[in-house]
């Protein structure tokens, strides 16, 4: 926990080495899980992973009433200053990926390397982002089948059944899910729905090495969004697809997702420039 200008920010860390800031998504640490999952711990073998909870999520305070994505970007600027993080690797999943991309185009000098996993944030015509709010409304009082289908490879994915069971869950877990949806409602529902129409045209500014990793069966943020990030980010080479995973690739295919990221970090280690294999 850190305090930033009078606001509490819940924050957990794992591993040692260069600082890597991890901005979470819905089906993720802080978004539903209380603690790091195998994906984050594996990432911790390659870096010092610092994972703050978004405003209003987990034990973090909400921002002032009626805040939006711009306020969250400034919030993170203040968090990084408070932590003394001047230059760091930045990884974001889902809505955390959107925030990471917004930070990278504004402050490219602070972001050494950027990694986006199933990130929303872009307007991609004909490939709308799935309605997580509607699908979070249970069917028959408790059924979350369609939410699991939206977030995971299949509706019966073990990680999905673990965190989104079709039953009233543990009170604190239900609260984390609610708080995450409330955060999502503030930042991603103005409308437009989870994107900033001008972000795509600004991606050219984020010249750092970038990895774009996507669950091959992502139904929440379609792979076309990954293609658009690859096309727009000068430091991205190609889209890395995680087979057998939906939107929640870090929960579903922890090793494959972490390994893709660790390999990217390894090949771009020395100069912050991508090391050519050829």
């Amino acid at each position, binding site marked *: 926990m850190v305090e930033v200008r009078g606001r509490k920010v819940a924050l957990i860390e794992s591993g040692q080495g260069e600082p890597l800031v991890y901005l979470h998504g819905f089906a993720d640490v802080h978004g539903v899980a209380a603690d790091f999952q195998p994906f984050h711990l594996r990432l911790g073998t390659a870096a010092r992973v610092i994972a703050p909870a978004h405003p*209003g999520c987990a034990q973090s305070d909400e921002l002032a*009433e*009626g805040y939006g994505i711009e306020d969250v970007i400034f919030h993170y600027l203040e968090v990084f200053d408070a932590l003394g993080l001047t230059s760091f690797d930045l990884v974001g999943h889902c809505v955390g990926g959107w925030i990471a991309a917004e930070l990278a185009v504004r402050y490219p000098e602070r972001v050494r390397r950027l990694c986006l996993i199933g990130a929303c944030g872009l307007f991609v015509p004909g490939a709308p982002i799935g*309605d*997580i*709010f*509607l*699908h*979070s*409304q*249970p*069917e*028959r*009082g*408790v059924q979350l089948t369609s939410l699991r289908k939206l977030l995971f490879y299949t509706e019966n994915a073990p990680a999905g059944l673990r965190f989104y069971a079709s039953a*009233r869950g543990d*009170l604190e877990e*239900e*609260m984390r*899910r*609610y*708080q995450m*949806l*409330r*955060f*999502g*409602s*503030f930042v991603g*529902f*103005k*409308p437009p*729905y989870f994107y900033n129409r001008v972000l795509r045209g600004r991606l050219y500014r984020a010249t750092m090495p970038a990895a774009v990793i996507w669950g091959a069966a992502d139904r929440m943020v379609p792979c076309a969004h990954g293609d658009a990030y690859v096309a727009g980010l000068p430091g991205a080479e190609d889209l890395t697809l995680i087979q057998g995973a939906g939107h929640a690739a870090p929960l579903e295919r922890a090793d494959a997702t972490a390994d893709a990221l660790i390999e990217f970090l390894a090949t771009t280690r020395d100069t912050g420039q991508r090391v050519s294999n050829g």
Partner: protein
Amino acid sequence: MTRPVQLYCWHFMSYPYLPADFDERYETGWVTVPNRLWDAERSRGLYQEYIDQLVYADEIGFDGMVLNEHHQNIYGLMPSPNLIAAALSQRTKRGKIVILGNLLPLHLNPLRMAEEYAMLDNMSDGRLIAGFAPGSGPETFNYDVPSAPSRGQFWEAVDLIHRAWTEDGPFAWEGRHYPLRYVNPWPRPTQQPHPPVWIPSSRSTETLVNIAKRGYCYFLSSRSHGSETAKSQAQFAKVLEEQGSRFDPFRMGILMSAHVGDTDAQAQDEAKEGVWYFLKNCLKGHLRREGRMLTAGPGIPYIPPSEFRNYLKFSDPNAPLLGDAEDWADLQRAQSIIVGGPDTVARRIIDIVEHAKCGHLLIQFHMGNMPDALVRKSMTLFAREVAPRLREHSARLFGRHFPEMERSAEMAQ
């Protein structure tokens, strides 16, 4: 004599021409219910039929007519209740016109609501009761209204409209959501200082405090009236007392549905089809577990986390809802849809009023696909046989429980 309960006829204007197998074939009656089911030819004259029923309510002595706003569903065909209110203002002479209410966060500029309500108040010669609602359930989806900031938006809009009605313009409104440089609406309302304001709410203490401190009327937005209704009344009375004010029955209203027949058996026989059409089709997506409920829950995160924690602690997701009722006994337990002969209906409503102690009874007569003749027959029996008993009983009840109300009425005379 103490003022008796005020009896209003509430019309939801549901869509009555769904296929017989609607419940089996379609997962919801809200937001995504395919609008190809709208039968334009059969629907000719539908609004006329519904408006005529409300005009009839005015003619036979109801104290008012109630309308509300819904979008993209079969439950209520009034995306703009103000249009129906405008028609009623020209065809009725006596009853209040209650709009419960305009969904403020759906509108770009709340001044439009201040203007339209002021027009309606003038057009009806001061008969408007102005309801405001935040509309935070299905509207999240059908109008893309963000849930989380909607409460803040709502109260700012309410205060802006109130000030626009009561303070001389032009003035500037330096709001968070609706900053406006020139607030100066023409016309101003007929009723001074402003039309009565009603706000629907469940039992959120925060909302009750907001209603109480502005002097508005609290409409309990629940369709069931067991012990929870009495609790809501007590909670509102406590909030009023904490503010140095006092509960009286006309600070609160409740909703129920009724069908009156000559006998209990005949009433059930008449109402059966309409009631179950309403329960199974119109409430699918709202107060039924079948399908996906869109009126409360985690996907509509408009309440602060502390309130949601209470909701989780005290709600049972497996408990049946009103629309899950399978028979008349289930409905009787819910104390919501009251069907019977005049004696039964009068007795059961008196029972509710004794517990709830509230003075505004908003009663739905048209349910689902109920034919016009049955609706009118039920309304006629209600006005002739039930209403006089409710008035007499409630006047005595309120006189006993709220003696100061009687004294202030005498002083005013």
